[in-house]
């Protein structure tokens, strides 16, 4: 009975937020709100990706910004240097990030805990150094200005201009919905259950016949593919990319969104992504104090709410399963 009630409330909330997200651009003309919403949408993609790797498969990565960057650079350069259409550059950006994700996945296969984290940090730093120093391609620290927007798309007399914020918002919105649906079905499939088995107990998972190599690599591949898509959307929206956007700090932000939202659930990290994006924007009022407060709040939040703010039932269940410390 309680569960039923909870479920219907949840469905109602999801439906309501989807409708709100859909109609917002129709009611507001405020560019700033739209901008923040588009950025939130891009973060949702990043967070969904990291959530697959960390929240479901249990592999902590602090190199997510590297894949975000690889997607952004690949897609921007394909469009600018080789004159690819956006609709081709976008998936290739994702695939390039996914391949890089596999490259990280291989060393990560054998690693756990702090070793894995430091390995992913090193991977992120290497990618950052490449963006910084491969000047003939990436223009180094100066970045690449003038990344084209997806352009116009016409059906008969009807022209859709993607350089308009509202139109771009719907593009991001649709991609987020597709990603969400794929995510939802993935984590409820055999693959998703294998991820969770690995997260909960790697050895036990292996014993019951879960192919660790295959599923860990799948997690890395799918998670980083989403990051690449997000990178491409970011590059063609902002129009300027530089190594500064794809640093360890960015990876940390993405991780904070996943953890504070509540990893291992789908709604939690989305809540984290939108919440943190808006919070960081609101905190601009604090100017210089902004990051100091951010650090302090993070420290406190981790101690008070180590499992994030969302996913009550899920968290409870997981807590019961957790081996007791002596």
């Amino acid at each position, binding site marked *: 009975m309680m569960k039923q009630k909870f479920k219907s409330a949840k469905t109602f909330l999801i439906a309501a937020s989807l409708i709100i997200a859909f109609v917002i651009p129709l009611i507001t003309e405020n560019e700033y709100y739209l901008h923040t919403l588009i950025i939130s949408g891009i973060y949702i993609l990043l967070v969904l990706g990291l959530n697959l790797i960390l929240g479901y498969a249990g592999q*902590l990565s602090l190199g997510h910004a590297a894949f975000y960057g690889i997607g952004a650079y690949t897609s921007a350069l394909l469009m600018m240097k080789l004159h690819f259409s956006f609709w081709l550059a976008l998936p290739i950006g994702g695939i390039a990030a996914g391949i890089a994700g596999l490259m990280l996945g291989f060393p990560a296969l054998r690693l756990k805990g702090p070793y894995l984290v*430091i390995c992913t940090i090193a991977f992120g730093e290497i990618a950052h150094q490449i963006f910084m*120093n491969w000047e003939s391609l990436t223009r180094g620290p100066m970045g690449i200005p003038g990344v084209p927007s997806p352009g116009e798309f016409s059906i008969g007399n009807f022209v859709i201009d993607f350089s308009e914020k509202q139109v771009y918002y719907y593009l991001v919105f649709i991609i987020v919905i597709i990603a969400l649906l794929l995510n939802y079905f993935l984590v409820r499939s055999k693959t998703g259950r294998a991820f969770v088995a690995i997260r909960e107990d790697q050895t036990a998972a292996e014993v019951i016949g879960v192919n660790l190599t295959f599923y860990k690599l799948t997690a890395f591949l799918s998670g980083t593919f989403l990051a690449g898509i997000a990178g491409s959307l970011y590059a063609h929206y902002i129009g300027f990319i530089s190594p500064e956007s794809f640093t360890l700090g960015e990876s940390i932000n993405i991780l904070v969104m996943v953890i504070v939202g509540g990893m291992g659930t789908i709604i939690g990290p989305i809540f984290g992504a939108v919440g943190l994006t808006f919070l960081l924007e609101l905190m601009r009022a604090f100017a210089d104090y902004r990051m100091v407060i951010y650090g302090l709040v993070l420290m406190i*939040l981790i101690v008070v709410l180590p499992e994030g703010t969302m996913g009550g039932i899920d968290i409870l269940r997981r807590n019961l399963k957790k081996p007791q410390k002596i």
Partner: protein
Amino acid sequence: MNTFISQLINGVVLGSIYALLSLGLTMIFGILDIVNFAQGELYMLGAYVGFFLIAVLHINFLLALVISMIVMGVFGILVERFSFRPLMGKPHTSMILGTVGLSIFLMNGAILIFGAEPRRVGTPYSDIFVNLGPFSLSMQRVLVFAVTAALIILLTLFIQKTKMGKAMRACAQDLTAARIVGIDTNRIAMLTCFIGSALAAAGGVLIAPLFLVSPVMGLKACLKAFVVVILGGLGNVPGAIVGGFIIGIAENLTAGFISSEVKDLIPFSILILILLVKPEGLFGKYIPEKV
């Protein structure tokens, strides 16, 4: 050949700093099981304390070094009490984000208090040169190595010869068992943070006259220290020392012979390679003594 030797000397100097920074990192991991992302900030704050003692209060360099180590040691105890202890026993993800939060807090706090612009620290030792055959190097560089060596010897003596050191080794092996035999593990944790933070501060003060002091100096150094501790074996004290020198030398030789652009790429590539081939690090993790 000349380039080789002068880069080797630079590498040893930089390696000393990495070793000091990594020692604290590896000890804190060995005993508290926490990967401290704020280790670089302790080093940065140590450098700032040194800066104020030397440039503002005109205190003698070596005295400033000692004072800064003590000040930051006490700060390390506060960090243990208010940041690490609440994190103990939490999942790795939480511990990492907790110290990341601390690092963000300290770095931006430093920007707020000291300003973002880099500062220069002058010492008389920078103008004295020591001649070694065809090479001359500033007394400051000799001092960096000499002080590091002295601190390492003192630390080793402390860990091996004193009762406290023995208790630390016990805690590193098994915290629960150490508690059972009556060791006050909280005190040992505080002591570890005192030492770790003081060593990082020593690194900061020593490097201050050679490079500039700035609030963001800690982050980069901390990432290098991660490489060092993995290279030497996480939680392994001799490993951190040897690893520090290896990374420092490798970095400078790359800068001298290949190009300074790839200089920062080398440590991280070494790290990925080590993790692929020998994840337990050069000194293995089955050495019975982690501290």
